[in-house]
């Protein structure tokens, strides 16, 4: 497949005077796990918001598998097979874990029956049960999603991504706030998923990024600073200086000194 799974042309988004995404030209070939890294405010999440339709771009175009999806509504983009998770874990808190999965599996349908019992759809519930097994939440199926621990919510999010059978999955800091053990479990799942699905991941945890990504794009101030294989990125002098050479903690110390 020569057509890249995701491509943008001069994609731009401003917030007042701030250019969050600046003439971004990116082309992501299929079959690889892409990671986008960069400091806070680099425009990574804005980039995801532009692709998934939550934000309108101020200029430029987005192509998904060669199809122009610029300006489509979030649900239309979702129905094309682009699914995403949000940086702040986001499920349906008052629905049960199983219902979260169920509605996610059904949401793409054009017709939602108004009066037939939702529980009567045997095939859909079997799919929910399979997904529950896959993510290891079968024991919590009936719990309200709002009462889950943070790590379990993250797993549920991955389950929701799974059951919606995406073609392209956008993960926004999937391991943010997780314990090391939870991170390991999540990374394992993402690796498994990447075998069949194209994934773009935004991640701050460098260990995670260099562990799973086949390609890395470094963003800074709304533009691409560098892109390449993990090795190329690790060896890139500019990237090293800007992002990898210094632990984040020192940034804070320095900011505190100057404040």
């Amino acid at each position, binding site marked *: 497949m020569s057509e890249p799974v995701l491509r943008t042309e001069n994609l731009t988004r401003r917030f007042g005077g701030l250019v969050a995404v600046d003439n971004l030209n990116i082309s992501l070939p299929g079959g690889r796990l892409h990671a986008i890294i960069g400091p806070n405010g680099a425009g990574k999440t804005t980039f995801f918001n532009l692709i998934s339709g939550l934000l309108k771009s101020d200029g430029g175009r987005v192509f998904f598998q060669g199809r122009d999806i610029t300006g489509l509504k*979030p649900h239309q983009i979702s129905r094309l097979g682009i699914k995403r998770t949000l940086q702040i874990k986001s499920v349906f808190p008052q*629905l049960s874990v199983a219902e979260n999965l169920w509605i996610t599996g059904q*949401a793409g349908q054009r017709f*939602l029956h108004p*009066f037939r*019992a939702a529980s009567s759809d045997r095939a859909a519930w079997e799919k929910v049960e399979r997904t529950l097994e896959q993510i290891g939440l079968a024991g919590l199926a009936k719990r309200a999603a709002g009462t889950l621990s943070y790590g379990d919510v993250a797993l549920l999010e991955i389950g929701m991504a799974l059951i919606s059978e995406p073609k392209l999955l956008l993960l926004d800091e999937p391991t943010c706030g997780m314990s090391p053990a939870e991170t390991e479990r999540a990374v394992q799942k993402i690796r498994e998923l990447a075998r069949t699905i194209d994934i773009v991941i935004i991640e701050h945890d460098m260990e995670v990024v260099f562990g799973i990504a086949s390609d890395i794009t470094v963003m800074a101030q709304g533009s691409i600073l560098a892109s390449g294989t993990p090795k190329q990125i690790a060896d890139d002098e500019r990237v090293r200086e800007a992002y990898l050479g210094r632990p984040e903690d020192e940034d804070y110390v320095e900011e505190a000194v100057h404040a």
Partner: protein
Amino acid sequence: MSAATAINRVMMAAFAAFLVSVPWSVPALINSFWVSVIAEILIWSLFAASVNLLFGCVGLLSFGQALYFGFGMYGVAIGISDLGLSFWPAFGLGIVASMAMALVTGIFAVRLTWHYFAIITVVFSLIFYFLALSNKWLTGGDDGINFTLPPTFTFGGTKWALTDPTFQYFFILTTVALCFWLMHRLIGSPLGKAFLAIRDNDVRASLIGLNVYLLRLIAFVLAGFLAGVAGALFAFFGRYASASYMFYHVSGEAVVWAIVGGAGTLFGPIVGTSIFIIVREVVSSHWEHHGLIVGIVAILVVMFAPKGVVGLWRQWLTSLSERTVTPADAAPVDIKLRTEP
């Protein structure tokens, strides 16, 4: 079957049996005036259910449902007195008029959420309230339209009409029960689950592929249907229609009933409406400030029982069944969820 389900089933059966026995038991125990109070409670419960469908199931707080109630009333009244329609076509006209109005206003209103949505629904209802007041030739303004009831069913020589109080009561009970049964089916259906998902998290709902705008519009029209049926029933019940029922005060009362009863629950609107109308009927003859009680109860419920009376009841049932196993941990979660923006 757990103890909680068993208790609920028994309560339901007792409640249903009571409702069916009202035309005989209530005159015997209290007096026949209370039969019409209960009929009125049933109608207003349906109106509160319209608020509940929007707020409890889709997360849209409407302060303008009286508009669709009013259209239901006027559809019936104008249909009978001006157009000379018989019973069922007039009923149908009332329902269609309110649903059409809900569709037209909903197209604009459901683009907004939260306070913006609440404000635009109030604005729409005020516009039509003043239009109804000023167009006396059509609506009778403040005086309203009085009409003579046509018969409901005619078989040969025999006629059934709402002029017979027992027939009227059962007509109202059947219609309201049917609407609540439809609500029950709706809540458990795929469409209902999609509504709940939107209520919980509309951004996420759009990302999983739900057309949030269209689904909210559908909910708005369905709520218009419930309000319209309630308004049409109330017109039949009072034999008249008046612009005063389109005032936002009426909408606000339904919001209080739905929230105190328990937003998002099937029976919340019935419970809330019953409490307030019974308090009003009992207290208002002795004390003119019965509104004060309404206010205090509403504040207490919002503060201490965010899921309303039905929520308290469920919590109590849960603690009852969990007392032997593990302590209930549902309460703090409920409170946290309700404060979400």
